[in-house]
């Protein structure tokens, strides 16, 4: 990171710096909202709604870890573009293993909460299968986007720390919501 003095803050500059990216994120969020709204009629919609905030944050957290590790790897010269990438492969593997563990736990906790509060859930096996398959797929797709963004940013002289986060927030919701309901439909068969 360069350590240039950014000077004191001004309200106008903060707003003008952020408004374009916020506008873009809001447009993508609206599209995610469309997919959420489209699945409103699903019989298990309410049960899935319980995991939506966790699901989006967890895939985002995992991709952020990978993004910042790859950024650091590029800054430190441990990742060299054009060579065989052991570090990238290992980070991707780690992301998928973390996804497996955390989404397994999420499925168990969500179903337990549903049974506790509602008297009945959608079944441990079903819920765990949904969170696992949707979680691992979303983490994989998001991590690939993050890795490509980090490598391309670095290649063109942009600090990857500044580009990977907006990519995660923008695409995380959209890919997460689509996958969650798609896998639920496949697994439940509705």
């Amino acid at each position, binding site marked *: 990171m360069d350590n240039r003095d950014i000077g004191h*803050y001004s309200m106008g500059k903060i707003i003008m710096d952020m408004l374009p990216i916020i506008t873009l994120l809001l447009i993508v969020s609206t599209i995610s909202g*469309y997919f959420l709204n489209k699945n409103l009629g699903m019989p298990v919609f309410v049960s899935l709604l319980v995991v939506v905030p966790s699901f989006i*944050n967890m895939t985002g957290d*995992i991709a952020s870890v990978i993004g910042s590790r790859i950024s650091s790897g590029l800054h430190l010269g441990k990742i060299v573009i054009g060579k065989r990438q052991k570090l990238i492969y290992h980070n991707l593997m780690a992301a998928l293993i973390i996804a497996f563990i955390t989404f397994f736990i999420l499925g168990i906790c969500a179903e337990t909460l549903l049974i506790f509060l509602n008297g009945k859930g959608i079944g441990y096996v079903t819920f765990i299968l949904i969170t696992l398959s949707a979680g691992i797929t979303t983490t994989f797709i998001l991590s690939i986007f993050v890795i490509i963004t980090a490598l391309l940013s670095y290649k063109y002289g942009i600090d990857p720390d500044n580009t990977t986060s907006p990519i995660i927030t923008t695409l995380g919701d959209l890919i997460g919501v689509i996958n969650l309901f798609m896998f639920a439909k496949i697994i439940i068969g509705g």
Partner: protein
Amino acid sequence: MLPKDISHTVKDCAPSISMYGILELLAGIVLAGTINKLEMIPGVFILLPGIMDMKGNISCALGSRLASALHLGYIKPYFHMNRDIKANIYSSLILSFIASFLLSVFAFILTLIIGLNVSFVALLLISLISGIIAGVVLTFLTIFIAFLSFRRGMDPDDITIPFVATIGDIFTIFSLIVAIGVVGWIIGI
């Protein structure tokens, strides 16, 4: 056997990510518990991801700027008004307002495209009321957490963002429920 760097990454990250995920279930439960209210106003689900993203886009950026400003000594970790604090507070509040307004416009355009019959005024009011309540609460909460962590000798970069990201969702959903209550009362359902 896994290579060492993979198992280290997994051991470092899996516990905290699981913990935040379980905490976030609170936000999900509140959301699912109010499904009847949410369903009363068509189009609310289109707003939902955008409303929930605002804390990340606006408050986490605020947290990150405050952390830098504290490190640089531009602001002191107790409540006072100087130009840096004012610029940060006012810009977050104004951005919350602009973003809430834009979100309702985008959502309304989408409902026109997909042919859903939705009241623009209802979408606008829900987005503005929840965006402004969440914006005000989260702005001051972010400042409080950044100051508190800095005073305790911790790096506010590490504390503020995960905290705001998790607590922010719960606050945002409460502000959405308040907004739906108010709008429901105004339009009489």
